[in-house]
Protein backbone atom coordinates (compact mmCIF):
# COMPACT_ATOMS: atom_id res chain seq x y z
CA UNK A 1 0.00 0.00 0.00
CA UNK A 2 2.77 2.38 1.00
CA UNK A 3 4.59 1.56 -2.23
CA UNK A 4 1.50 2.36 -4.25
CA UNK A 5 1.19 5.77 -2.60
CA UNK A 6 4.87 6.51 -3.34
CA UNK A 7 4.39 5.53 -6.99
CA UNK A 8 1.24 7.66 -7.29
CA UNK A 9 2.95 10.63 -5.69
CA UNK A 10 5.97 10.30 -7.96
CA UNK A 11 3.71 9.97 -10.97
CA UNK A 12 1.78 13.07 -10.01
CA UNK A 13 4.99 15.02 -9.46
CA UNK A 14 6.29 14.03 -12.90
CA UNK A 15 2.97 14.69 -14.61
CA UNK A 16 2.49 18.16 -13.18
CA UNK A 17 5.02 20.04 -15.36
CA UNK A 18 3.71 18.22 -18.44
CA UNK A 19 0.14 19.17 -17.59
CA UNK A 20 1.19 22.77 -16.97
CA UNK A 21 2.98 22.94 -20.33
CA UNK A 22 -0.04 21.50 -22.15
CA UNK A 23 -2.32 23.96 -20.36
CA UNK A 24 -0.26 27.02 -21.20
CA UNK A 25 0.17 25.95 -24.83
CA UNK A 26 -3.58 25.75 -25.13
CA UNK A 27 -3.90 29.21 -23.58
CA UNK A 28 -0.96 30.98 -25.18
CA UNK A 29 -1.88 34.17 -26.94
CA UNK A 30 -1.20 34.21 -30.68
CA UNK A 31 -2.20 37.88 -30.84
CA UNK A 32 0.03 39.36 -28.14
CA UNK A 33 1.80 41.60 -30.69
CA UNK A 34 -1.50 42.87 -32.08
CA UNK A 35 -2.80 43.62 -28.61
CA UNK A 36 0.42 45.37 -27.59
CA UNK A 37 0.16 47.54 -30.71
CA UNK A 38 -3.51 48.36 -30.04
CA UNK A 39 -2.79 49.28 -26.47
CA UNK A 40 0.23 51.30 -27.57
CA UNK A 41 -1.94 53.24 -29.97
CA UNK A 42 -4.50 53.89 -27.21
CA UNK A 43 -1.72 55.03 -24.87
CA UNK A 44 -0.29 57.50 -27.39
CA UNK A 45 -3.82 58.83 -27.97
CA UNK A 46 -4.37 59.13 -24.24
CA UNK A 47 -1.03 60.93 -23.81
CA UNK A 48 -1.93 63.55 -26.40
CA UNK A 49 -5.48 63.91 -25.11
CA UNK A 50 -3.90 64.44 -21.70
CA UNK A 51 -1.95 67.44 -23.03
CA UNK A 52 -5.18 68.96 -24.33
CA UNK A 53 -7.30 67.94 -21.36
CA UNK A 54 -4.75 69.26 -18.86
CA UNK A 55 -5.09 72.70 -20.46
CA UNK A 56 -8.87 72.45 -20.82
CA UNK A 57 -9.20 71.64 -17.13
CA UNK A 58 -6.85 74.40 -16.06
CA UNK A 59 -4.29 71.96 -14.66
CA UNK A 60 -1.65 73.37 -17.01
CA UNK A 61 -1.44 76.74 -18.70
CA UNK A 62 -2.85 77.03 -22.21
CA UNK A 63 -0.11 76.88 -24.87
CA UNK A 64 -1.39 77.19 -28.44
CA UNK A 65 1.64 75.48 -30.04
CA UNK A 66 1.64 72.54 -27.65
CA UNK A 67 -2.12 72.15 -28.05
CA UNK A 68 -1.89 72.21 -31.83
CA UNK A 69 0.94 69.66 -31.80
CA UNK A 70 -1.07 67.29 -29.61
CA UNK A 71 -4.15 67.65 -31.82
CA UNK A 72 -2.06 67.09 -34.96
CA UNK A 73 -0.60 63.94 -33.41
CA UNK A 74 -4.12 62.66 -32.74
CA UNK A 75 -5.07 63.43 -36.33
CA UNK A 76 -1.99 61.61 -37.65
CA UNK A 77 -2.85 58.55 -35.54
CA UNK A 78 -6.46 58.68 -36.65
CA UNK A 79 -5.30 58.53 -40.28
CA UNK A 80 -3.57 55.20 -39.67
CA UNK A 81 -5.26 52.19 -41.25
CA UNK A 82 -5.38 49.98 -38.17
CA UNK A 83 -7.51 47.17 -39.50
CA UNK A 84 -4.66 44.64 -39.30
CA UNK A 85 -4.48 45.21 -35.53
CA UNK A 86 -7.91 43.63 -34.99
CA UNK A 87 -7.78 40.00 -36.20
CA UNK A 88 -10.74 37.75 -35.53
CA UNK A 89 -10.31 35.87 -32.25
CA UNK A 90 -8.36 38.61 -30.47
CA UNK A 91 -11.18 39.32 -28.02
CA UNK A 92 -11.46 38.91 -24.28
CA UNK A 93 -13.78 35.90 -24.55
CA UNK A 94 -10.98 34.02 -26.32
CA UNK A 95 -7.97 35.53 -24.55
CA UNK A 96 -9.20 36.49 -21.08
CA UNK A 97 -7.34 39.25 -19.26
CA UNK A 98 -4.90 39.87 -22.13
CA UNK A 99 -7.37 42.30 -23.69
CA UNK A 100 -10.56 44.19 -22.92
CA UNK A 101 -11.72 44.07 -26.55
CA UNK A 102 -15.22 42.59 -26.51
CA UNK A 103 -16.40 39.96 -29.02
CA UNK A 104 -19.06 42.52 -30.00
CA UNK A 105 -16.40 44.17 -32.21
CA UNK A 106 -16.32 41.19 -34.55
CA UNK A 107 -20.06 40.66 -34.33
CA UNK A 108 -20.59 44.12 -35.80
CA UNK A 109 -17.47 45.31 -37.60
CA UNK A 110 -19.54 47.92 -39.41
CA UNK A 111 -20.55 49.61 -36.16
CA UNK A 112 -16.98 49.38 -34.86
CA UNK A 113 -15.70 51.05 -38.04
CA UNK A 114 -18.35 53.75 -37.71
CA UNK A 115 -17.11 54.48 -34.16
CA UNK A 116 -13.57 55.00 -35.49
CA UNK A 117 -14.99 57.25 -38.20
CA UNK A 118 -16.83 59.35 -35.60
CA UNK A 119 -13.66 59.53 -33.50
CA UNK A 120 -11.79 60.80 -36.57
CA UNK A 121 -14.37 63.55 -36.99
CA UNK A 122 -14.07 64.59 -33.33
CA UNK A 123 -10.28 64.69 -33.75
CA UNK A 124 -10.67 66.92 -36.82
CA UNK A 125 -12.82 69.23 -34.73
CA UNK A 126 -10.11 69.32 -32.08
CA UNK A 127 -7.44 69.94 -34.71
CA UNK A 128 -9.33 73.02 -35.89
CA UNK A 129 -9.94 74.27 -32.36
CA UNK A 130 -6.82 73.45 -30.35
CA UNK A 131 -4.61 76.35 -31.47
CA UNK A 132 -7.47 78.86 -31.47
CA UNK A 133 -7.62 79.69 -27.79
CA UNK A 134 -8.56 77.99 -24.55
CA UNK A 135 -12.31 78.34 -24.97
CA UNK A 136 -12.29 76.70 -28.39
CA UNK A 137 -10.17 73.87 -27.02
CA UNK A 138 -12.52 73.39 -24.08
CA UNK A 139 -15.52 73.25 -26.40
CA UNK A 140 -13.86 70.51 -28.48
CA UNK A 141 -13.07 68.31 -25.47
CA UNK A 142 -16.67 67.19 -24.93
CA UNK A 143 -17.23 65.81 -28.44
CA UNK A 144 -13.82 64.11 -28.30
CA UNK A 145 -14.61 62.52 -24.93
CA UNK A 146 -18.02 61.33 -26.04
CA UNK A 147 -16.58 59.75 -29.20
CA UNK A 148 -14.13 57.76 -27.04
CA UNK A 149 -16.92 56.81 -24.65
CA UNK A 150 -19.34 55.87 -27.39
CA UNK A 151 -17.00 53.14 -28.63
CA UNK A 152 -15.87 52.01 -25.18
CA UNK A 153 -19.50 51.73 -24.06
CA UNK A 154 -20.21 48.86 -26.44
CA UNK A 155 -16.85 47.45 -27.42
CA UNK A 156 -14.56 47.56 -24.34
CA UNK A 157 -14.98 45.49 -21.20
CA UNK A 158 -15.55 47.71 -18.16
CA UNK A 159 -12.52 47.49 -15.90
CA UNK A 160 -14.35 47.20 -12.62
Amino acid at each position, binding site marked *: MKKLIVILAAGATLALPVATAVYSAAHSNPFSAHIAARQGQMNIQSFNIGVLGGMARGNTEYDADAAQTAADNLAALAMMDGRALWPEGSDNAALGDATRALPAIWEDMGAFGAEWQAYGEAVSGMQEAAGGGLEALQAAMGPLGSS*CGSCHEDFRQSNN
Partner: protein
Amino acid sequence: MRNFLRFILGLILLGGVIGWIVTAPDPLSAADVPARDGDAENGEQVFFAAGCASCHSAPEAEGEDRLVLAGGRSFPSDFGTFFAPNISPDPEQGIGDWSERDFLNAVMRGVSPQGQHYYPAFPYGTYGRAEVEDIQDLWAFMATLPTDATPSRAHDVGFPFSVRRSLGGWKMLFSQDDWVVTGELAPELERGRYLVEALGHCGECHTPRNPLGGLQRDAWLTGAPHPSGDGRIPDITPAELTWSASDIANYLNDGFTPNFDSAGGEMVEVIANMSQLPASDRAAIAAYLRALP
Protein backbone atom coordinates in the same frame (compact mmCIF):
# COMPACT_ATOMS: atom_id res chain seq x y z
CA MET B 1 -61.06 20.67 16.71
CA ARG B 2 -63.59 22.42 14.53
CA ASN B 3 -63.12 25.57 16.59
CA PHE B 4 -59.38 25.33 16.11
CA LEU B 5 -59.76 25.05 12.34
CA ARG B 6 -62.08 28.04 12.35
CA PHE B 7 -59.47 29.96 14.35
CA ILE B 8 -56.74 29.12 11.82
CA LEU B 9 -58.99 29.99 8.91
CA GLY B 10 -59.81 33.29 10.60
CA LEU B 11 -56.11 34.03 11.04
CA ILE B 12 -55.40 33.32 7.38
CA LEU B 13 -58.28 35.58 6.31
CA LEU B 14 -57.14 38.32 8.68
CA GLY B 15 -53.57 38.00 7.38
CA GLY B 16 -54.88 38.24 3.84
CA VAL B 17 -56.90 41.35 4.61
CA ILE B 18 -53.99 43.03 6.40
CA GLY B 19 -51.67 41.98 3.59
CA TRP B 20 -54.08 43.40 1.03
CA ILE B 21 -54.29 46.67 2.92
CA VAL B 22 -50.57 47.18 3.46
CA THR B 23 -49.70 46.29 -0.13
CA ALA B 24 -52.19 48.81 -1.53
CA PRO B 25 -50.74 51.53 -3.75
CA ASP B 26 -50.23 54.88 -2.04
CA PRO B 27 -50.83 57.63 -4.60
CA LEU B 28 -50.36 61.34 -3.97
CA SER B 29 -53.39 63.25 -2.75
CA ALA B 30 -54.52 66.51 -4.33
CA ALA B 31 -53.07 68.37 -1.34
CA ASP B 32 -49.59 67.00 -2.17
CA VAL B 33 -49.60 68.69 -5.58
CA PRO B 34 -49.14 72.46 -5.79
CA ALA B 35 -51.47 74.27 -8.20
CA ARG B 36 -48.98 75.70 -10.69
CA ASP B 37 -47.96 75.27 -14.31
CA GLY B 38 -44.77 73.28 -14.85
CA ASP B 39 -41.72 75.16 -16.13
CA ALA B 40 -40.39 73.21 -19.13
CA GLU B 41 -37.05 75.01 -19.04
CA ASN B 42 -36.26 73.80 -15.54
CA GLY B 43 -37.83 70.50 -16.53
CA GLU B 44 -35.11 70.01 -19.13
CA GLN B 45 -32.47 70.26 -16.39
CA VAL B 46 -34.44 67.79 -14.26
CA PHE B 47 -34.66 65.47 -17.28
CA PHE B 48 -30.86 65.34 -17.60
CA ALA B 49 -30.20 65.23 -13.87
CA ALA B 50 -32.63 62.31 -13.51
CA GLY B 51 -31.14 60.44 -16.47
CA CYS B 52 -34.52 59.58 -18.05
CA ALA B 53 -33.06 59.07 -21.54
CA SER B 54 -30.46 56.55 -20.33
CA CYS B 55 -33.20 53.96 -19.89
CA HIS B 56 -36.11 55.19 -22.00
CA SER B 57 -34.46 56.17 -25.29
CA ALA B 58 -34.26 53.43 -27.90
CA PRO B 59 -31.34 50.99 -27.59
CA GLU B 60 -28.13 52.56 -28.99
CA ALA B 61 -29.74 56.01 -29.39
CA GLU B 62 -27.19 58.83 -29.34
CA GLY B 63 -27.27 62.61 -29.67
CA GLU B 64 -30.69 64.11 -30.46
CA ASP B 65 -32.20 60.61 -30.73
CA ARG B 66 -31.86 60.34 -26.94
CA LEU B 67 -34.85 62.70 -26.72
CA VAL B 68 -37.11 60.13 -28.41
CA LEU B 69 -38.29 58.09 -25.43
CA ALA B 70 -39.43 55.06 -27.40
CA GLY B 71 -38.28 52.51 -24.79
CA GLY B 72 -37.07 49.00 -25.53
CA ARG B 73 -33.78 48.79 -23.63
CA SER B 74 -33.47 45.58 -21.61
CA PHE B 75 -32.34 45.32 -17.98
CA PRO B 76 -31.41 41.82 -16.84
CA SER B 77 -31.59 41.18 -13.08
CA ASP B 78 -31.87 38.34 -10.56
CA PHE B 79 -35.66 38.67 -10.78
CA GLY B 80 -36.05 38.60 -14.56
CA THR B 81 -35.51 40.93 -17.49
CA PHE B 82 -37.19 44.32 -17.49
CA PHE B 83 -37.85 46.33 -20.65
CA ALA B 84 -38.07 50.10 -20.44
CA PRO B 85 -41.47 51.26 -21.71
CA ASN B 86 -42.28 53.94 -24.25
CA ILE B 87 -42.74 57.22 -22.31
CA SER B 88 -42.86 59.54 -25.31
CA PRO B 89 -45.92 61.84 -25.55
CA ASP B 90 -47.58 59.42 -28.01
CA PRO B 91 -51.17 59.06 -26.70
CA GLU B 92 -51.48 55.41 -27.82
CA GLN B 93 -48.11 53.80 -27.06
CA GLY B 94 -46.57 56.44 -24.81
CA ILE B 95 -47.89 58.54 -21.93
CA GLY B 96 -49.46 61.37 -23.92
CA ASP B 97 -52.93 60.73 -22.49
CA TRP B 98 -51.77 60.86 -18.86
CA SER B 99 -52.61 63.66 -16.45
CA GLU B 100 -49.89 65.48 -14.54
CA ARG B 101 -51.01 63.65 -11.40
CA ASP B 102 -50.67 60.28 -13.19
CA PHE B 103 -47.09 61.21 -14.01
CA LEU B 104 -46.27 62.39 -10.49
CA ASN B 105 -47.67 59.14 -9.06
CA ALA B 106 -45.63 57.07 -11.49
CA VAL B 107 -42.35 58.87 -10.84
CA MET B 108 -42.63 59.57 -7.13
CA ARG B 109 -44.83 56.72 -5.85
CA GLY B 110 -44.26 53.95 -8.39
CA VAL B 111 -48.00 53.66 -9.10
CA SER B 112 -49.49 53.43 -12.61
CA PRO B 113 -52.59 55.36 -13.71
CA GLN B 114 -54.47 52.03 -13.35
CA GLY B 115 -53.35 51.81 -9.72
CA GLN B 116 -50.76 49.05 -10.18
CA HIS B 117 -47.31 49.00 -8.62
CA TYR B 118 -44.34 49.46 -10.92
CA TYR B 119 -41.26 47.29 -10.54
CA PRO B 120 -38.44 49.09 -8.73
CA ALA B 121 -36.19 48.78 -11.81
CA PHE B 122 -37.86 52.18 -12.25
CA PRO B 123 -36.12 54.15 -9.45
CA TYR B 124 -39.23 55.78 -7.99
CA GLY B 125 -37.83 54.95 -4.56
CA THR B 126 -35.22 57.66 -5.01
CA TYR B 127 -37.29 59.99 -7.24
CA GLY B 128 -39.77 60.07 -4.36
CA ARG B 129 -37.26 62.31 -2.54
CA ALA B 130 -37.43 64.93 -5.29
CA GLU B 131 -39.32 68.21 -4.98
CA VAL B 132 -42.82 67.82 -6.44
CA GLU B 133 -42.29 71.07 -8.38
CA ASP B 134 -39.26 69.60 -10.15
CA ILE B 135 -41.30 66.61 -11.32
CA GLN B 136 -44.10 68.92 -12.45
CA ASP B 137 -41.49 70.80 -14.50
CA LEU B 138 -40.20 67.50 -15.88
CA TRP B 139 -43.74 66.65 -17.01
CA ALA B 140 -43.97 70.02 -18.79
CA PHE B 141 -40.65 69.36 -20.55
CA MET B 142 -41.48 65.81 -21.55
CA ALA B 143 -44.66 67.00 -23.27
CA THR B 144 -42.40 68.93 -25.68
CA LEU B 145 -40.46 65.81 -26.80
CA PRO B 146 -41.11 63.90 -30.05
CA THR B 147 -43.77 61.21 -30.12
CA ASP B 148 -42.95 57.63 -31.06
CA ALA B 149 -45.40 54.79 -31.78
CA THR B 150 -43.23 51.83 -30.73
CA PRO B 151 -45.30 49.54 -28.45
CA SER B 152 -43.84 48.85 -24.99
CA ARG B 153 -42.58 45.33 -24.44
CA ALA B 154 -43.86 43.21 -21.51
CA HIS B 155 -41.32 42.43 -18.76
CA ASP B 156 -40.00 38.89 -18.63
CA VAL B 157 -40.45 38.20 -14.91
CA GLY B 158 -41.35 34.81 -13.38
CA PHE B 159 -43.59 33.91 -10.42
CA PRO B 160 -43.75 35.14 -7.61
CA PHE B 161 -42.26 38.44 -8.82
CA SER B 162 -44.91 38.56 -11.55
CA VAL B 163 -47.54 39.29 -8.85
CA ARG B 164 -47.41 43.06 -8.84
CA ARG B 165 -49.39 43.35 -5.62
CA SER B 166 -46.40 41.83 -3.80
CA LEU B 167 -44.42 44.95 -4.72
CA GLY B 168 -46.49 46.79 -2.12
CA GLY B 169 -44.68 44.70 0.47
CA TRP B 170 -41.36 45.51 -1.15
CA LYS B 171 -42.13 49.21 -1.02
CA MET B 172 -43.17 48.95 2.62
CA LEU B 173 -39.89 47.24 3.50
CA PHE B 174 -37.47 49.30 1.44
CA SER B 175 -38.94 52.68 0.51
CA GLN B 176 -37.43 55.42 2.64
CA ASP B 177 -38.12 59.09 2.25
CA ASP B 178 -35.28 60.30 4.43
CA TRP B 179 -31.81 61.24 3.18
CA VAL B 180 -28.85 58.91 3.61
CA VAL B 181 -26.48 61.75 4.46
CA THR B 182 -28.08 63.75 7.25
CA GLY B 183 -27.23 66.75 9.40
CA GLU B 184 -26.57 70.39 8.61
CA LEU B 185 -25.16 70.76 5.11
CA ALA B 186 -23.69 73.75 3.29
CA PRO B 187 -25.78 74.77 0.23
CA GLU B 188 -23.39 73.09 -2.25
CA LEU B 189 -23.46 69.78 -0.36
CA GLU B 190 -27.22 69.99 -0.05
CA ARG B 191 -27.52 70.46 -3.81
CA GLY B 192 -25.08 67.57 -4.34
CA ARG B 193 -27.12 65.37 -2.05
CA TYR B 194 -30.29 66.23 -3.95
CA LEU B 195 -28.63 65.40 -7.28
CA VAL B 196 -27.04 62.15 -6.07
CA GLU B 197 -29.69 60.78 -3.69
CA ALA B 198 -32.86 61.97 -5.43
CA LEU B 199 -32.65 62.84 -9.13
CA GLY B 200 -29.37 61.19 -10.14
CA HIS B 201 -30.25 57.87 -8.46
CA CYS B 202 -26.53 56.97 -8.33
CA GLY B 203 -27.17 54.57 -5.46
CA GLU B 204 -29.35 52.34 -7.64
CA CYS B 205 -26.20 50.91 -9.23
CA HIS B 206 -23.37 51.93 -6.89
CA THR B 207 -24.98 50.65 -3.65
CA PRO B 208 -25.19 46.91 -2.92
CA ARG B 209 -28.60 45.27 -2.50
CA ASN B 210 -29.92 42.65 -0.09
CA PRO B 211 -31.31 39.33 -1.39
CA LEU B 212 -34.74 40.91 -1.93
CA GLY B 213 -33.29 43.74 -3.98
CA GLY B 214 -33.51 46.42 -1.28
CA LEU B 215 -30.65 48.94 -1.13
CA GLN B 216 -28.21 48.45 1.76
CA ARG B 217 -28.13 52.04 2.93
CA ASP B 218 -25.42 51.26 5.49
CA ALA B 219 -23.12 50.47 2.55
CA TRP B 220 -24.09 53.59 0.58
CA LEU B 221 -22.26 53.97 -2.77
CA THR B 222 -19.63 51.38 -1.82
CA GLY B 223 -20.02 49.44 -5.06
CA ALA B 224 -22.00 46.37 -6.04
CA PRO B 225 -21.98 43.40 -8.40
CA HIS B 226 -23.21 44.35 -11.86
CA PRO B 227 -26.87 43.25 -12.11
CA SER B 228 -26.09 41.54 -15.44
CA GLY B 229 -23.84 39.18 -13.43
CA ASP B 230 -20.72 40.34 -15.26
CA GLY B 231 -18.21 42.46 -13.32
CA ARG B 232 -18.61 45.03 -10.55
CA ILE B 233 -19.84 48.59 -10.31
CA PRO B 234 -17.20 50.56 -8.41
CA ASP B 235 -17.12 51.98 -4.91
CA ILE B 236 -17.31 55.79 -5.29
CA THR B 237 -16.77 56.71 -1.65
CA PRO B 238 -13.48 58.45 -0.76
CA ALA B 239 -12.16 55.09 0.54
CA GLU B 240 -11.81 53.84 -3.03
CA LEU B 241 -12.35 56.82 -5.32
CA THR B 242 -9.29 58.95 -4.63
CA TRP B 243 -9.93 61.54 -7.35
CA SER B 244 -10.12 65.19 -6.35
CA ALA B 245 -13.45 67.01 -6.48
CA SER B 246 -12.34 68.75 -9.67
CA ASP B 247 -11.31 65.39 -11.23
CA ILE B 248 -14.81 64.05 -10.54
CA ALA B 249 -16.56 67.16 -11.87
CA ASN B 250 -14.42 67.12 -15.02
CA TYR B 251 -15.03 63.40 -15.58
CA LEU B 252 -18.78 64.04 -15.44
CA ASN B 253 -18.33 66.73 -18.09
CA ASP B 254 -15.82 65.45 -20.66
CA GLY B 255 -15.77 61.74 -19.84
CA PHE B 256 -12.06 61.46 -19.10
CA THR B 257 -10.47 60.01 -15.98
CA PRO B 258 -7.58 61.95 -14.37
CA ASN B 259 -5.19 59.86 -16.52
CA PHE B 260 -7.20 60.63 -19.65
CA ASP B 261 -8.54 57.18 -20.12
CA SER B 262 -12.16 57.42 -21.22
CA ALA B 263 -15.31 56.37 -19.43
CA GLY B 264 -16.95 53.17 -20.65
CA GLY B 265 -20.01 51.04 -19.92
CA GLU B 266 -23.12 52.64 -18.46
CA MET B 267 -21.21 55.73 -17.34
CA VAL B 268 -21.05 56.92 -20.94
CA GLU B 269 -24.82 57.50 -20.82
CA VAL B 270 -24.56 59.11 -17.40
CA ILE B 271 -21.93 61.54 -18.67
CA ALA B 272 -24.06 62.37 -21.73
CA ASN B 273 -26.66 63.58 -19.20
CA MET B 274 -24.37 65.19 -16.63
CA SER B 275 -22.52 67.20 -19.27
CA GLN B 276 -25.84 68.98 -19.99
CA LEU B 277 -26.05 70.34 -16.42
CA PRO B 278 -24.52 73.61 -15.17
CA ALA B 279 -20.91 73.27 -14.00
CA SER B 280 -22.08 74.19 -10.49
CA ASP B 281 -24.21 71.01 -10.39
CA ARG B 282 -21.28 68.79 -11.37
CA ALA B 283 -19.18 70.51 -8.73
CA ALA B 284 -21.95 69.90 -6.17
CA ILE B 285 -22.05 66.18 -7.00
CA ALA B 286 -18.26 66.01 -6.67
CA ALA B 287 -18.32 67.86 -3.34
CA TYR B 288 -20.98 65.47 -2.01
CA LEU B 289 -19.00 62.39 -3.05
CA ARG B 290 -15.80 63.76 -1.47
CA ALA B 291 -17.69 64.45 1.77
CA LEU B 292 -19.03 60.88 2.13
CA PRO B 293 -17.78 58.95 5.15
